[in-house]
């Protein structure tokens, strides 16, 4: 009985630190189109260090995670006006080194399986805003959500 209890406590002692290791995702920088003009599409590259969206991830070294964006089709502006958004197949990037200059491109419209090297990584996002010729002037906003499932 004593032997069994000892094994039990050892197992629990080993298990607790594994469970306690932290994973997280944090929104770091908004995707900013800045000033846009009616009828003139405006694009932000995922490699843009000032205007691309950025999320920072914390994970287990060598682990994997699925990345899934919830992307708005429009931004909402004055009096409920909407401004269409388009995200292309090359508009997201994963950097295992958290370097905007070293990304692996992926399609933000579908889930992506990322592999970590260290315990930190970043995800960058670009896109295109398509204001109509008669787009109402004013400020427009939307929300981009990144869901990360760590394995």
């Amino acid at each position, binding site marked *: *009985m004593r032997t*069994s*209890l000892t*094994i*039990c406590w050892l*197992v*629990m002692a080993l*298990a607790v630190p*594994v*469970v306690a290791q932290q*994973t*997280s*995702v*944090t*929104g*770091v*920088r*908004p*995707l*900013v*189109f*800045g*000033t*846009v*003009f*009616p*009828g*003139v599409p*405006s694009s932000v590259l995922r490699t843009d260090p000032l205007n691309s*969206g*950025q*999320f920072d991830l914390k994970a287990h070294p060598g682990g994997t995670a699925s990345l899934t964006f919830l992307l*708005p089709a429009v*931004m909402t*502006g004055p009096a409920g006006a909407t*401004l269409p*958004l388009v995200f292309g197949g090359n508009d997201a990037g994963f950097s295992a080194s958290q370097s905007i200059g070293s990304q692996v491109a992926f399609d933000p419209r579908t889930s992506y399986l990322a592999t970590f090297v260290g315990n930190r990584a970043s995800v960058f*996002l670009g*896109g295109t*805003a398509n*204001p109509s*010729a*008669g*787009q*109402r*002037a*004013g*400020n*427009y*906003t*939307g*929300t*981009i*959500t*990144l*869901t*990360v*499932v*760590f*394995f």
Partner: protein
Amino acid sequence: MYTATKVAVLVLALVAAGAVTGQAQNNATVNVTAAVQQPVVVLKTNDLDFGLVFPGVNKPVTLGSASAGRFSVTGAAGAGVNLSFAVPTNLTSGLNQLPVTWDASWNQSNAAGGNNFAPSAALTPATLSGTGALFVFVGGTVAPTVTQVAGSYTGTVTMTVTY
């Protein structure tokens, strides 16, 4: 001993289950933002009128003339725009043609003196004023031949302004 074994097995089972289903899900958001500027609006404020012309005598209309064509443009304060024109090479009266050449200028105030350019399909950069205003003046010269057929000749000048 039997009870302790059951506890150990239970703990191992829980740990194993945790290893199999060891997933953690996290969400985060960022905003996406844009500031849409005022649409550009173009109005004709005066037609270009060469008035009476005589066969064999060129007739200019200067940019500062009351007869010059004028456009008023409004848009985002201080914004850069491009001007492009569709201009005819001849005014027409039925099948008869009257050759014409063109001059233009743009200014942030409503005065003909400003930035001269030749209106054409090529883009001409201009800048709206601090209040979002721009004025474009169009003049030109008609060159009737000595055998020009009498009549009323007309044409259309179209200016397009884009950010």
